[in-house]
């Protein structure tokens, strides 16, 4: 690796040396308690796929390039210098991690491994070896934020078509205004994804609840975060923040996308509006009696997969369970569950990459967990999880149906 490249990468590492990064890099005792707490390691037991193994890749580089001791006595901490081979390890460590933070729950110090790996991802961008798909999708999202005018009419046209679907589902005479857009002073700005289902089902629920809402022009998903580019992550999130501020809404409601929810709620500072997940809103409507779902509508055994970004990273555990308790006659909990639940293997943008075999292997523990419940329906509330659960289902020929919570609610509304 050339000198210039090394100093460029070192410069990028430096931009990530914030306070938590400093102490996370210093304090790991390599106690190994996190060793097998990663679902990837469970599926492919290689040191590189253990949380501590991943963080060591970055830590060794940090020692060599930022610590006097690492430069003088690399032996002491096994410090490693930047070179092309190391960058392959960096890729392996960073883009096999879903950012689920299950390891953090098991670390006695609560070290945030994905936070450490954010340095790795930034280096990969600098090295030009970050996954092209993610970088491209992030660029497209940023571009859409900058020239929304170009997209506006086409998007509205598509929404008019979706309104007809909503009309049918609600059994109404007219489709007029069923999916409002650019509505100033609405209570809720709902942010969907590019798939029609992510708009139609919530629209059914909002209409049924008589909500004063409006649909965002943008998708919730944040490929900037997946690619590991903090600047693009901010730009992509800003699109929604600006839209919400301009419309003066009270609340931004995020589609079933864990990362989008966590970024807007926890990683982008304070906002003049409240941030909720669609799951919380459905739960609220039910408790307030604004919508009713058919009690015991589903008789087949059913289980719920906690999306990592909604559950342990977002604090939404009870709402989905309470909704499902009404819908399902035979609800079964996975083991372990809630904050200890195994990640499905789809997070961190991994489902957008061409890595199906890897995801099937790393989803093994999830497969075992689902099979052990004997459930025939697996419900989740995150688009990534649902895609990955589908991959696990086909990959292992698992006899289950994978369903989205919002969809299930919208289909079982008591009219």
């Amino acid at each position, binding site marked *: 690796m050339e000198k210039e490249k090394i100093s460029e990468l070192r410069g990028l590492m430096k931009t990530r*040396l*914030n*306070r*938590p*990064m*400093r*102490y*996370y890099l*210093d*304090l*790991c*005792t*390599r*106690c*190994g*308690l996190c*060793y*097998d707490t990663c679902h990837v390691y469970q599926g492919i037991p290689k*040191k590189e796929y*253990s949380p*501590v*193994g991943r963080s*060591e890749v970055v830590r060794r580089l940090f020692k060599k390039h930022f610590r006097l*001791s690492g430069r003088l006595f690399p*032996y*002491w*901490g*096994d410090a490693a210098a930047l070179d092309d081979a190391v960058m392959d390890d960096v890729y392996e460590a960073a883009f096999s991690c879903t950012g689920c*933070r299950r390891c*953090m*729950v*098991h*670390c*006695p*110090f*609560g*070290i*945030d491994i994905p*936070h450490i790996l954010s340095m790795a991802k930034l280096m990969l961008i600098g090295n030009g070896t970050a996954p092209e798909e993610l970088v491209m999708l992030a660029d497209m999202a940023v571009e859409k934020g900058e020239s929304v005018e170009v997209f506006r009419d086409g998007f509205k046209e598509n929404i008019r078509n979706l309104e007809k679907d909503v009309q049918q589902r609600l059994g109404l005479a007219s489709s007029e205004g069923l999916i409002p857009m650019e509505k100033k002073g609405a209570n809720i700005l709902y942010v969907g994804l590019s798939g029609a289902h992510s708009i139609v089902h919530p629209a059914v629920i909002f209409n049924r609840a008589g909500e004063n809402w409006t649909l965002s022009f943008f998708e919730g998903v944040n490929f900037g975060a997946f690619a590991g580019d903090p600047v693009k992550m901010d730009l992509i999130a800003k699109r929604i923040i600006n839209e919400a501020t301009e419309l003066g809404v009270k609340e931004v409601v995020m589609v079933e996308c864990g990362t989008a929810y966590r970024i807007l709620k*926890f*990683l*982008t*500072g304070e906002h003049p509006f409240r941030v909720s997940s669609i799951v919380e809103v459905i739960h609220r409507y039910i408790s307030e009696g604004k919508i009713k779902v058919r009690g015991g509508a589903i008789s087949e055994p059913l289980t719920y997969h906690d999306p990592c970004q909604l*559950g*342990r*990273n*977002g*604090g939404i*555990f009870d709402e989905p369970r309470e909704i499902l308790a009404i819908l399902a006659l035979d609800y079964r909990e996975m083991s372990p569950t*809630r*904050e200890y639940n195994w990640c499905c293997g789809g997070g961190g943008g991994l489902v957008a990459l061409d890595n199906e075999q890897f995801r099937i292997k790393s989803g093994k523990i999830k497969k075992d967990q689902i099979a052990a419940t004997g459930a025939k329906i697996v419900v989740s509330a995150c688009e990534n999880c649902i895609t990955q659960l589908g991959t696990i289902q086909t990959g292992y020929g698992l006899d289950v149906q994978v369903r989205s919570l919002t969809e299930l609610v919208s289909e079982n509304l008591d009219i």
Partner: protein
Amino acid sequence: MRDTLYYFIMVPMVYLAAAVFVAGLFFKFMNVMLSPRIKGRLGLFPRRLPRAAGVLKDAFALPPAFRKDKVFWALIIAFHVAFVLLALGHLELIREFAFLQIIPHQVFLGAGAVGIVLIAATLYFLFRRFRTPWREISVPEDFILLLVLFVTMIFGSHMHLAARYGIAGFDIPLEDYRAYLGGLVSFKPVIPDMIANSPHYIIIVIHIFFANLFIMLFPFSKMIHSVFAFSALSLKRK
């Protein structure tokens, strides 16, 4: 020559170690404080306890270790409790602390058991690392620190046990350790004759040498977890 070397270890090196320790901790602390804060919150859920109580529980009861490996957990707790008792014992060599006599004891609490517990735990930590998968994630630092602790503790325990149980003509009375440490803290260093002329002097020199080494490595090694654990655990609950 020998006397000069011994003197160097017993006096100037102790001051050097103390200076490196304090300056190192200050450097590490500033290193973090001068780095930019992050914008968001990295907390985990659920949070059943108020933040401060949660941090204390995480720091002192180590729930993740308890869940995962009860033996390891017990030894980690035993090690850390014994380490604190050990520090208190050394302070008592400098000065009597009346409040510590709630449990009546000679200078060191535990009649030698504290040292034995520490040595046993240290050996467990070391032997644990010899095995897969812990061997693969270990770096030289992990082994060396444990070895430095082991040697320090073996010799320290020997000094204590030999004096307490009067083994084989071990002729250094407590008062001389007091005089030595008292001299160090009052910046009037002396090495009492009973120590300097004892055939066991070398044992004390080795103990002090490795203790100095450990103290100097403290801020610059993973031992810093004793400080940063609180920052990380607090962030986890923000």
